[in-house]
């Protein structure tokens, strides 16, 4: 097991390097809108294009060979010196440190609620298959899966912010984090993320639990007099948790990679999603690489944690046998 984890950790480093290298290459090959605007401005002020291009690159260290830039970025990444954000004029580490609490503030509760409620409702649906409640839950799940996050976010702002005035129409970062006002303004973004995650959880847990509700060992438990609650929580949930733990990582990635971009842009929350979105749009290489690094780690370490969790949830799973391979 120990060797397995170590190997996976080593693979994590290799995969991270690959992702960062690919990202660096893509950003380097893309046109830089900042350079375009700067050069146009300088030319209109009487400068020449080549001079303007050269000074732009010099000020940003882009006049060095691509290989040198790549090497420095990678060394910086490894030594936690993630460089300087040209579009924010601050160290990248500082930018990330300032942004992540905002994402966590709505992302964590959303993930918690969607996981607990999603699994609970999914199990309920599985044990009450083809009832009115099951249909209602399925309908809700399909609604959550189908509705685009950004559209739902705008509708929430229009209905609850503009029409009813219950929530602010834009995020105010000067509100104390631990305050009712902050909770009020985070409610809508959390709801959007919750809805998109809970639907998947529900459908997946329902499908997984269905495999077990009619299995022999559950029937045996029922024959032995186990209550419905006990059968679900002890005999259905436990084996179902193994595949369900897979979707947890996917959910986390969904929040980090998809929902945070859409939700933060629409609500104007200065979190990791907005940080990454702006970095990509403005081609802030150092910031792009750092914000790509985060979901990469979430994915790789999440998958590792998930594999380890399998062995806890199901003692029959053992990676020890792979060590000899």
């Amino acid at each position, binding site marked *: 097991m120990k060797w397995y984890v170590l190997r996976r950790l080593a693979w994590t480093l290799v995969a991270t390097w690959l992702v960062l290298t690919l990202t660096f290459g893509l950003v380097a090959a893309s046109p830089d809108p900042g350079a375009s605007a700067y050069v146009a401005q300088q030319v209109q002020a009487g400068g020449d294009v080549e001079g303007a291009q050269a*000074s732009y690159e010099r000020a940003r260290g882009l006049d060095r060979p691509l290989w040198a830039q790549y090497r420095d970025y990678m060394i910086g990444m490894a030594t936690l010196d993630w460089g300087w954000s040209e579009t924010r004029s601050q160290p990248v580490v500082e930018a990330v440190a300032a942004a992540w609490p905002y994402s966590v503030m709505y992302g964590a509760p959303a993930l918690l609620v969607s996981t607990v409620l999603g699994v609970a409702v999914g199990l309920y649906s599985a044990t009450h298959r083809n009832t009115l409640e099951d249909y209602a839950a399925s309908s809700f799940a399909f609604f959550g899966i189908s509705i685009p996050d950004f559209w739902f976010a705008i509708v929430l702002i229009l209905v609850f912010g503009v029409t009813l005035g219950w929530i602010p*129409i834009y995020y105010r970062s000067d509100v104390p984090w631990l305050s009712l006002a902050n909770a009020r303004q985070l409610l809508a973004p959390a709801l959007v993320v919750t809805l998109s995650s809970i639907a998947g959880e529900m459908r997946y847990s329902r499908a997984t639990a269905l495999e077990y509700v009619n299995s022999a060992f559950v029937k045996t438990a029922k024959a032995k007099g186990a209550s419905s609650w006990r059968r679900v929580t002890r005999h259905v949930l436990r084996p179902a948790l193994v595949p369900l733990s897979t979707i947890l990582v996917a959910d986390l990635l969904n929040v980090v990679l998809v929902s945070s971009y859409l939700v933060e842009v629409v609500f104007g929350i200065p979190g990791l999603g907005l940080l990454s979105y702006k970095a990509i749009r403005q081609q802030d290489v150092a910031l792009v690489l750092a914000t790509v690094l985060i979901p990469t780690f979430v994915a790789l370490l999440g998958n590792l944690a998930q594999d380890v969790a399998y062995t806890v949830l199901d003692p029959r799973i053992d990676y020890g046998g792979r060590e000899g391979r």
Partner: protein
Amino acid sequence: MGAGGLASLAGCQGGQSDGGSAGDGDASTGDASTGDASTGGDSRGTYVEAVPSDAQSLNFLYQSDANSEKFVGAAMDAAYDFRDFGEIVPLWIESVTETDKTVWEYTLRDNLRWSEPYGQLTAEDWVYTVRNLYQGEGNWAGVVQYASWPDDVTIEETGERSFRVTLPEPQPAFLASRAMWGARCLPKGLIEPYVEERDVEGLKRDEELNTLSYTGNLGPYDFEEWERESRFVATRADEYYLREVAGEEPFGEAFAEAPYFDEYRLQVIPEESTRLQALREGDLTFYQNVPADKVAQYRELDHLKFRFPPNPYCASLYYNQRANGWELLRDVRVRRALSTAIDKVAVAEDIYRGFPTVAQTFQPEWSPWYVTERVTEHGAGDTHSYEEARSLLESAVSGTDYGYDGDALVGPDGSQVTLRLVFRAGASQNQTTAEFVAQELSNVGIAVDPVNGGPANTVQSKYLLNTDGEGQPTFNGGSRDASTSQEPWDLLYGITLNAYPINPNGSEVFWTESGSFNFFGYVPEAPLADWYATAKSTTDEAARREAFAKVFAALSEEQPVDFLNFSVFKNAYRRDYVGMPDEGEYDYLDGWDSTTWRLAEG
């Protein structure tokens, strides 16, 4: 690109730290006692403005965007501003004298102080900054001011508070060049270590430069905090140097207490609909440029009022005269014909809701350089005519392989002439205008294929930058026969250019054959380069006016582009925010005294 994209020499109008005369027609209206913007007692309230995007930097050596300038401008004035054509507002600079328009002597005020430990702002600071950064060898520091300070301009200290700038030849409009207008310097003590080490990274990352903590009494507000992508907050400066000159011309007594807000807040709200909602809710003191289609709706709101200062950006339809554009666009008669066929009044009235004024040349009518009787009109009123346009086209194509087949203008291959009109994405009116142009030109037998060219940087890289295949792409890569853009195009819309009414010298880059921004390959028939040279160097004001009159007359005649319109800023203010000129009286350079604008007392 678009309004605010390509470099502007004129600041945006209307808010704090921008220009305006002190006429006040609204002091008696509204109720100032709402929200945190209340007045009275010790509280002066908070100025709140929503901005669509964040500043890139507070270090003005490296900023090239308008938003960064807005942020920095709150904490720091500059050398001087303009309040009318030829009339400066002396800010850090107390006085300017000149000899033969070649030697310019500047004297700084004696009450300018950096934050400790840098002491007084002196001529030494200015000279050191210019010589070592703005004119740094090969622009080693990569600063944005480099283009404004050519190597052949010299600067020297002549006293503790005075310095002299010597030009290689007379420049009557040097005052209105970017070398000194709106320019700033830095404390020598702050930048010296970086200069000596040629430390670009240090200069870029210096904490004082990035937090404006060196600005002393040099601006109306002191920097308080900047939360990226969220807000910028500055608080009223305890000691603002202009308070000491209140009452002196041109500063009114109102400057004795300026600014009139305790806090200055710029709230970053990327979504336009959300910004507008904030305006509707009464959260904002000022909103710059409400979309044209929303103005009527927002004017109905009791808590708002509007002003419409002129905008010096010209919206034009560009004719590609390079080798990858329609060959006949090189013929003046054809360009005139197309400009005659396109109804620019309809564009201004119907697409842009009547806010812009029709353009006929590269100066707005309110510019002192616009001489009505010298300008040739096209596409407005009587000069908009399909018949006239067709007649011009028929005359132009006679003797060529082109000709009319019924109602269609056909080319050498016998098929109808189809022009590719590229428009910039990002504003719905761009596409509407492109489609309208297509409709107009169909009336003279030309088919137009509107193509979405993508966002500004894509349009720039695909259609503006051109090369003859040997050098790097530039905006003017040389002969129009050899240097072409990456993608072919015939007509292009969505790029607005600043007409520089304060100093049209700068517009030379667009209209001369070798002009560095002549991306469309225009080769003037009139001697524009000579006239520009005269205008730039003559010390005879009448000769300068005549030279520019000729330039702008020739542009209207030759139609290198179809000059469509000059718009206005559609600025919304809280009704109880007073001090700005009345509606209809807000001119181009009004707004320079906006630090005296305030919320009316209850």
